[in-house]
């Protein structure tokens, strides 16, 4: 009989997670510098979590998940960060699972869910296209019905870790009715080993390969791989965003950056410089107050409420704060700001440039901050068009 983790006290839950991480996460995987390790690099942790039944926190128990409500899930995510667990390829757990559990057929669930938990299927997500970034509705990758299959042609981009994945779920255009641009889109599950799928990794500013282009050239996909209704993919895809949107606004990244700034400042004696202290204080209070703001939204979830559009404010603030902290770190670095490699600080190192460059991304991905401001203007401030 599985534990009802929601009924366990928060402290006990935290301790259980901490023990589990001690047990199944090797030290070299904790507090990794790499933002996006590949599946192989973290497989031992992935399997360890799976064996303990802790891999899929929000999935229902009958599907092998922990069935956590938002309150415990928040703690789960917090502890993961606090314990320094590496990021695992999580599109299967975080997106495909919930998608299938809500919209999938029994066959889809029976086939895919166990294979996600076992790590046999590693998923990636194909939403963006070269000409459909902020404007997702204008996507053009097309799926045309041909007997018992769809034939897919087109291109996806910014597909995270596609070069390490073997399955992809894609948004494809199945109808050309241009009047309602967000209609006519369908969610399709594609085995990447199918003929006609090609992946091209793209290096980022940090010199790492987090994302790829994925090309579809007459790829045949069985019709039973449609999730939900045909032409209703927009609604299907949006339905799984849910409360996880709050994590886009979590203070995790600025906290990491702040730890680095403080480390460098201590090494340089900068805390004795009142001018630095003044700038530091501003950033420190921004981070502190971001924590208060995050807590307000998290509490709504914990108390069973739903997130409003206003949660986007956290995403804007945390991503811009992340940038500002890394910029101050480079300013503090003096001539060491020329280094691409980490900066030595006594016996330790500070990855100032790594974080500065990484901080360029979150303000763009997951809906650029300009798009977020547009949404807030309409949905929260109700400003006229």
């Amino acid at each position, binding site marked *: 009989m599985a534990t009802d983790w929601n009924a366990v006290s928060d402290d006990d839950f935290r301790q259980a997670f901490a023990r589990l991480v001690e047990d199944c996460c090797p030290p070299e995987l904790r507090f990794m510098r790499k933002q996006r390790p590949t599946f192989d690099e973290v497989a031992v942790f992935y399997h360890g979590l799976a064996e303990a039944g802790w891999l899929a926190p929000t999935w229902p128990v009958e599907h092998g998940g922990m069935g956590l409500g938002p309150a415990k899930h928040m703690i789960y995510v917090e502890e993961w960060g606090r314990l320094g667990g590496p990021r695992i390829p999580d599109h299967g757990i975080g997106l495909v699972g919930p998608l299938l559990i809500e919209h999938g057929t029994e066959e889809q669930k029976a086939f895919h869910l166990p294979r996600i938990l076992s790590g046999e299927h590693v998923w990636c997500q194909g939403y963006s296209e070269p000409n459909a970034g902020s404007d997702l509705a204008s996507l053009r990758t097309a799926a045309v019905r041909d007997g018992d299959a769809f034939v897919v042609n087109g291109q996806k981009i910014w597909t995270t870790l596609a070069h390490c994945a073997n399955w992809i779920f894609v948004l494809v255009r199945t109808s050309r009715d241009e009047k309602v641009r967000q209609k006519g889109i369908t969610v399709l599950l594609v085995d990447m080993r199918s003929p006609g799928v090609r992946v091209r990794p793209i290096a980022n500013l940090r010199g790492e390969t987090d994302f790829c282009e994925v090309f579809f050239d007459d790829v045949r996909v069985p019709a039973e791989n449609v999730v939900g209704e045909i032409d209703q993919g927009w609604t299907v895809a949006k339905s799984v965003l849910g409360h996880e949107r709050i994590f886009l606004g979590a203070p995790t990244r600025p906290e990491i950056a702040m730890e680095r700034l403080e480390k460098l400042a201590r090494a340089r004696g900068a805390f004795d410089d009142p001018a630095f202290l003044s700038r530091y*204080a501003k950033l*420190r209070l921004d981070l502190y107050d971001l924590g*208060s703001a995050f807590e307000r939204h998290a509490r709504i979830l914990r108390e069973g409420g739903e997130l409003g559009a206003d949660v986007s404010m956290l995403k*804007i*603030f945390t991503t811009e704060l992340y940038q500002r902290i890394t910029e101050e770190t480079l300013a503090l670095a003096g001539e060491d700001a020329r280094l691409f490699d980490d900066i030595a600080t006594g016996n330790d190192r500070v990855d100032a440039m790594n974080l500065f460059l990484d901080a360029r991304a979150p303000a763009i991905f997951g809906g650029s901050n*300009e798009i977020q401001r547009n949404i807030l*203007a309409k949905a929260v*401030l109700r*400003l006229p068009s």
Partner: protein
Amino acid sequence: MPQLHFDDGDGTLEMLRDSVAALAAHHPGAASLRARREAGADMDRELWGAMAEAGWTGLMLSEALGGSGLGPREQAVLSEALGRALICEPVAGSAVFLSTLFNGAPDNAEGARLASGLADGSLIVARAWRNGTVQARADGDGFTLSGAVAHVDQAQGATDFLVMGQCEGGPAFFSVPAGISGLGLDLQRSVDGALLGTLRLDGCHVPATGLVIGPDICAPLLERAVAATRLALAAELAGIAAQALQATIDYTTTRIQFGKPIASFQAIQHRLVDMWSDAELAFAAVNNAVEEAEAGEGRAAALAILAAKARAGDAAVSICRRAVHLHGAMGFTDECDIGLFLKRAISLNAMLGQPEELRLAFVNLERAA
């Protein structure tokens, strides 16, 4: 839109908000401010009386002393509402500060008299303890006070002054009746339409019974009073920020240029979103500080209050600045209320530490640990 969020089990908070709205209907804040400024006065005695009657001047004062004995949560909600309504009588600097002092003071007749007069509005007790120094020399049957203190609110209309004097044993608070020999007052105009006094004491004699708070407990009590006042100021500033934002949304939504409301232009929309976001952050900071203050008076509460006052002050001033700008030429006129919000925000932001000072206090306290 931005506001404080608290559990309001028995409806006290809702009642407080309603009562401010009711009073503001009879005494609109902007009109009171203009009238006070026009009259060259430092307060609106009638408005203050109505506020006392509503129970606001004794909200945090213990019931034993004639107050309501409520806590930071109720005070924050009241102060937020006062900020929104632009009711400028100094509730934070007077009622909250004095109530905290009196609550912690040892039993004494003079303290009880002042507390009771504060709660029922019969006395105006002006505070003179900052921006200057007063020496208190023990003499035969009491104390002789000499010195000067600037930026004293309600100094012109005061019936009594609570003056901090430096005794041999440290600072202490003395009750000094207005009009006694040796007291002098210079007045300057404050930006939010009142008068600020510089109180000069030239050998004022105070009887021994006038020692309301002795040097043995003055310092920690003052620290507690400053924290409570800062928290109330933060809530009031957040209220000002929220109302200035709302007024700007209303204005830009109705102001037509180039055939469209100016709030339909993306540059204006993004500016408004940033203002809103700043206000949200201010409310989150105040919310957090209230909760920390309710949880205890330790270091966590001290940090949270410093953060809240800094954040709310910065947010209120900068939101009001942008608000004035977005009101266009109209915002530069005295007849448009938005300028009054800006001026009030500046004044409260400058009280008990501007943001930079508070932020440095925060990091110094945090790093001292």
